[in-house]
């Protein structure tokens, strides 16, 4: 991976100071060692080892983005960080501070993102949230603590939605996972505040192989937010997460991701939710960063009247390839799904929408709506749409539409005639283009996302 050197404008590094650092490369022994170091129960060790065998057996997907440059032997698979990163706000490069300024990240959050403070929270806010959550019986921990404190729940659901044999990267994640979130929402509980990884004690922030498990019991509601608009620099070039969500009868889960990894990262993520009767699953997925992203949030609509929705934004510039999309598997009657994808390609970036809609014979009176719009900002960029629809029954309504176009010249001309320069005008139009999705995410994120797009559009910081 050494040949992948990128000019990452917002990148910064925190001095490495690790308690334990495994050797490069992966073998059975290391997998067992990780499990031992984490003092995990035997069944988890077994799951990890089985997953490792699957990882070795499976080949890299031949479709989609080019993954041939990943060197699996040149990656650290387990790093245990020290309690406090060694860094200070002053040590940060000027550019990154400026980026935070321009996006408008609050100081406390900046410190957290920059690794200056271990946690982003004011103690007071943090404690009151944790208190409120535990009063409601909500369990919100990092995955390792989740396994320690609630092994029976983890054992029941872990790997049931995304089995380790699902794909090579799911196998990899299952064998070496570390960090991620464990969220359990009891029956009938509605969590009013969007939950973010920040709120966890001693949060391991952005793990390389994070594993997230969300269980929403009957009639509950929760909104989980992952990532942030501010750029995240990482030295590890492979990020492979697995997210499993169980939406029980009548429950509703919304999962929002804003991904902005630095441009040297392969972001290969498996996200899947099982939705039971009358349940609602909503994925809001924004991919701005990384070198290559392959991510297709899925909903398995397993119960009558279940609903799935994916709202997706992808932005690719330079040599980035965003291969994003969605999967909707209709297995029960009266299920509905909606996929809305918006992508923007600039400066020889490439965006691909790849999706699957499967309507089984049992899924009578189901409805599917898919819409993909792509914007190409110059003649060197590329946009693809690869939808697949498999319909196995007659009582369905399936609609798919896609458009690819460039930015409207008249609109651009009009804005410029009003004294707005070209880059700003483009930013304005792009923000208008993605607005139907950004209005679905919390306001502070929308504001940051809009500024980030403007920043990306104007081509430089400052």
């Amino acid at each position, binding site marked *: 991976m050494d040949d992948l050197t990128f000019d990452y404008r917002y990148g910064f590094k925190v001095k490495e100071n690790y308690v334990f650092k495994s050797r490069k490369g992966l073998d059975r022994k290391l997998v067992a060692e990780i499990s031992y170091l984490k003092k995990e129960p035997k069944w988890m060790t077994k799951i990890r080892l089985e997953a490792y065998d699957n990882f070795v057996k499976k080949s890299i997907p031949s479709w989609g983005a080019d993954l041939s440059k990943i060197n699996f032997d040149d990656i650290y698979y387990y790093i245990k960080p020290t309690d406090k990163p060694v860094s200070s706000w002053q040590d940060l490069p000027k550019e990154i501070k400026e980026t935070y300024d321009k996006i408008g990240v609050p100081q406390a959050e900046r410190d957290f993102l920059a690794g200056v403070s271990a946690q982003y929270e004011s103690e007071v806010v943090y404690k009151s949230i944790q208190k409120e959550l535990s009063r409601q019986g909500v369990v919100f921990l990092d995955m390792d603590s989740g396994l320690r404190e609630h092994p029976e729940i983890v054992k029941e659901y872990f790997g049931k939605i995304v089995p380790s044999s699902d794909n090579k990267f799911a196998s990899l994640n299952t064998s070496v996972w570390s960090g991620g979130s464990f969220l359990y929402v009891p029956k009938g509980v509605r969590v009013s505040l969007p939950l973010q990884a920040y709120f966890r004690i001693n949060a391991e922030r952005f793990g390389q192989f994070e594993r997230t498990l969300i269980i929403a019991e009957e009639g509950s509601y929760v909104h989980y937010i992952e990532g942030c608009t501010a750029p995240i620099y990482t030295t590890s070039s492979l990020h492979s997460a697995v997210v499993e969500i169980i939406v029980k009868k009548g429950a509703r889960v919304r999962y929002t991701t804003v991904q902005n990894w630095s441009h040297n990262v392969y972001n290969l993520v498996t996200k899947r939710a099982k939705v039971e009767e009358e349940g609602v699953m909503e994925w809001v997925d924004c991919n701005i960063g990384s070198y290559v992203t392959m991510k297709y949030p899925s909903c398995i609509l397993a119960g009558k009247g279940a609903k799935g929705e994916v709202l997706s934004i992808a932005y690719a510039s330079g040599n980035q390839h965003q291969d994003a999309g969605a999967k909707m598997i209709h297995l029960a009657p009266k299920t509905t799904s909606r996929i809305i994808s918006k992508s923007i390609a600039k400066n020889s970036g490439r965006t691909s929408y790849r999706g699957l809609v499967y309507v089984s014979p049992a899924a009578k009176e189901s409805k599917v709506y898919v819409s993909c719009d792509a914007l190409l900002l110059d*003649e060197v960029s*590329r946009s*693809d*749409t690869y939808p*697949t629809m498999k*319909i196995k029954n007659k009582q369905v309504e399936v609609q*798919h539409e*896609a*458009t690819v176009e460039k930015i409207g010249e008249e609109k651009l001309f009009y804005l410029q005639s009003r004294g707005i320069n070209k880059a700003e005008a483009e930013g304005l139009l792009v923000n208008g283009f993605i607005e139907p999705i950004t209005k679905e995410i919390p306001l502070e994120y929308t504001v940051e996302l809009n500024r980030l797009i403007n920043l990306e559009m104007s081509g430089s910081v400052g």
Partner: protein
Amino acid sequence: MRRLIINLNNKKENNLIFDKSGNYLVFFKNLSGEFNFRIEAENVNLEIYGLFIGKNNDQFTIKTIQHHIVPNSSSNLLIKGVFFDQAKFFYRGLVRIEKGAQKSHAYQKNKNLVLSDNVDIDSKPDLEILANDVFCTHGSTTGYLSKDEIFYLKSRGLKENQAKDLLIEGFINEIASKFKI
């Protein structure tokens, strides 16, 4: 402008090259195979209409490629299918706009009407766009006869079967009317 009508069922040709400007109309019915429409001249207006009516154990596998190599041409594809019994329909469509093919317009649409629970439809309309000054859309719909429409026709005195036949005829007509030119 010249206008050329091509019946793909008779033509027995999988690679169609359009290297002279003009209007072209290609149509076909119940045809399986891979068909490559390669546009190598500017100002080509290509219309492609396909109709599929699948009954019993009919099985159709068709792939179409609208390949724009030069600027300023347009292609418009519409494939409609009506499927009964255990009919199977596999459609792969690709619109590919090469880097130099600016100001291309390419449309691709697949509409299917399903009349039996045992029908198997697999539709995959893809787009690969390497130029930016283009307008490309594709769409795919699969549905069954609307109960409201059948109810309306029955309320006007038609029998259930007559109502269905009328609605199917209407669905097919969008294509069939082009054949008659």
